[in-house]
């Protein structure tokens, strides 16, 4: 059986836990609960009809007082950076987080989820931002944990990428 460790990385309150809950349990709660330390969940996805178990490490979000613990990222096969589309600073910090994560986990496949796309009125990211991400070899995807939009796509792409590499995932 193939197992892959995937870490959810991002600033606090960007919706990492919500994306995992939506993906694994198909539920969404508006109640905010900050994650302490790490929570681990599991989801089996099919890649080319082969089951792949994703162990989703939902890491505590970064905040002013403390950074993400690099030890949690060690050995990760894939990363999902989560950005709150209504908070520009979360995108800025994603760049810093990428440096940290790649030092710990190496150059592993990653997705940057531009989350909360359901909140169109408050959306602050522009198409330029997304182009900039793509140009810096990010794989940006718009997601909404609330509606589920883009969630399967984000995890599915990453699963495929961890198994067969990014090239395969693009096809």
């Amino acid at each position, binding site marked *: 059986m*193939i197992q892959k460790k995937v870490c959810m990385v991002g600033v606090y309150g960007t919706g990492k836990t919500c994306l995992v809950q939506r993906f694994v349990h198909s539920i969404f709660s508006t109640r905010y609960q900050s994650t302490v*330390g790490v929570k*681990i969940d*599991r989801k089996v996805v099919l890649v080319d009809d082969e089951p792949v178990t994703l162990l989703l490490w939902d890491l505590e979000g970064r905040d002013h007082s403390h950074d993400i*613990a690099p*030890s*949690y990222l060690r050995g990760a096969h894939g990363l999902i950076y989560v950005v709150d589309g209504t908070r520009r600073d979360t995108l800025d910090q994603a760049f810093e987080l990428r440096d940290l994560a790649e030092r710990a986990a190496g150059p592993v496949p990653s997705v940057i989820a531009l989350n909360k796309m359901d909140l169109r009125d408050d959306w602050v990211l522009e198409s330029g931002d997304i182009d900039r991400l793509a140009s810096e070899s990010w794989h940006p995807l718009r997601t909404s944990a609330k509606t589920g939009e883009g969630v399967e796509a984000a995890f599915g792409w990453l699963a495929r990428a961890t198994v067969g590499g990014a090239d395969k995932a693009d096809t």
Partner: protein
Amino acid sequence: MTTEADSPETVERNGQPEPAAFDRLRDLLVGPERERLEDAERELEAARLTPERLAEHLPEAVAIRGRQDRRLARALTPTVERALRESVRRNPRELAAAIFPVLGPAIRKAVAETMAGLVRTINTAIQHSFSVRGLKWRWEAWRSGVPYAKVLIRHALVYRVEQIYLIHAETGLLLAHVAQPDLTTPNADLVSGMLTAIQDFVSDSFGPQGSGGRLRTFSVGELTVMVEPGPHAVLAAVVRGQAPEGLLETLQATVESIHLDFGDALVEFEGDTAPFASAGDRLAECLETVLTTDRDDPSKRVWLVWAVPLVLLLVGWGWLRVRANQRWDAAVAAIDASPGLVVVEAARGFRRASLRGLRDPLAASPKALAAGFGLDTVALDDRWEPYQSLEPAMIVARARAALRAPESVSLELRGVDSLLVTGRAPVEWLWAARATPLPAGINRVDYSALVPVLPAEAETHRRELESSRVLFGVGSADLDPAARAAVRTIATTMRGLQSALAPTGTRAVLELTGRTDPTGRDDANQALSQWRVDGVRGALIAAGIEAELLSGRGIGSSSPIAAPAAADRERVNRSVSLTIVLEPVASKGTP
């Protein structure tokens, strides 16, 4: 030496130099070499190997060589073996005697150790199998309906290694996992991840900077999680109860062996757990359940294997023994109660039994009686002293034997010493029995109730005679013509009877009874009846019957013959009737 001596002289003679000078020259030129040559010669001489010299140095040489390496021993082994074989072949006793002092103690020690081990095994097995505690738990299990195994675990669990996780150190992914069969662990992969996360957290939070400090053990309620880290994989054991110290060593050894065998796979691990499938067996070896009652489990089972049949055997044997004892006691009692048998001593061993006592020759066979109780008479030794029993049954038996009583005759003891004979028997037997001396214990024999059986013809005559009557007229004792005719018939029949009885040694005496009708005075009737008897008697004598075969008297009307009609009764009683009395012919002469 000779060559050396020759050559200088030759040189001397040919060249004619001054001899002393030459010697000096020679000393100067080859002196040191010559000394060395002489030394070498001496050494050669010393080194020549003679048996004496070898004998002198051999022990030392062997000792030195033996210290150096084992080659000498190896070289000698075949020779020593051959020598031993040869010694045994020639005279086995020699070697046996030599090693006997060693052999005896060694064997005793081995036997003692084996016995001690056996005793220990039995002790522990008994302690655990049939302890009060064990029975209590079985009772509890039966009462509560909970399987005994669970009750046992609840009370007796020392520890139980419930799960073993093999976790990839870097990713925290689960490589392999084993659990006790009764456990369901659907989230093993999550546990594996969380264990790793916790490890990371603890390491980050408490471990000194860069030291890689690790969480090794933590407890949750009754569970203890023991973590054994390796460079690439971590082994985690979930233990219920008190984890033993030895478990940590087991885990270490397992982690090491897994690194040894799966080293490359661990380094190259990219999420595919297939290469680690075979590690499961090794993890399973770490799973174990240890109960207080479990410590000697294998020996207990071994013990039970032969204990159960043994107990059954003992119970069966005991039951048979009890049954055999009961049979024996019953048989001895019956033999003792049997007439003419007195048991003085009854003994029963493991295989044989013996009886001693007194036996009347006429008593039943004791062996036959014993066989009747299912005893093995072949294994029964009996010895009986003969004696005469005075038990009634034996007296009767003895009398029957002495009198040669036929089956149709019954003998019965009346009072202490009087024998009553009843039934039917040939008249000859009666005379013979009467002539037989009385057997021990009997002083009187009563034959009165015995019916003597006569030959058929004699019987016919007897009946004819006894039903005959000579009738008289009223008040008359005269024989009228009819009476005379009757007397003649009686005489003829009487003669027939006598001749029919002759072969049986018997003679018949005719007893005549005279009667009258009730009319008239008694004394007159008495006299009349006597006259009637005398008349018939006279007529019979006249008809040729011997007087000694005739007896009888008149009884008047005192004991009349019964008849239905009154008139008939009077006629019938005016008569002389006949009774036959049998006597042995032999007694004729006796007074």
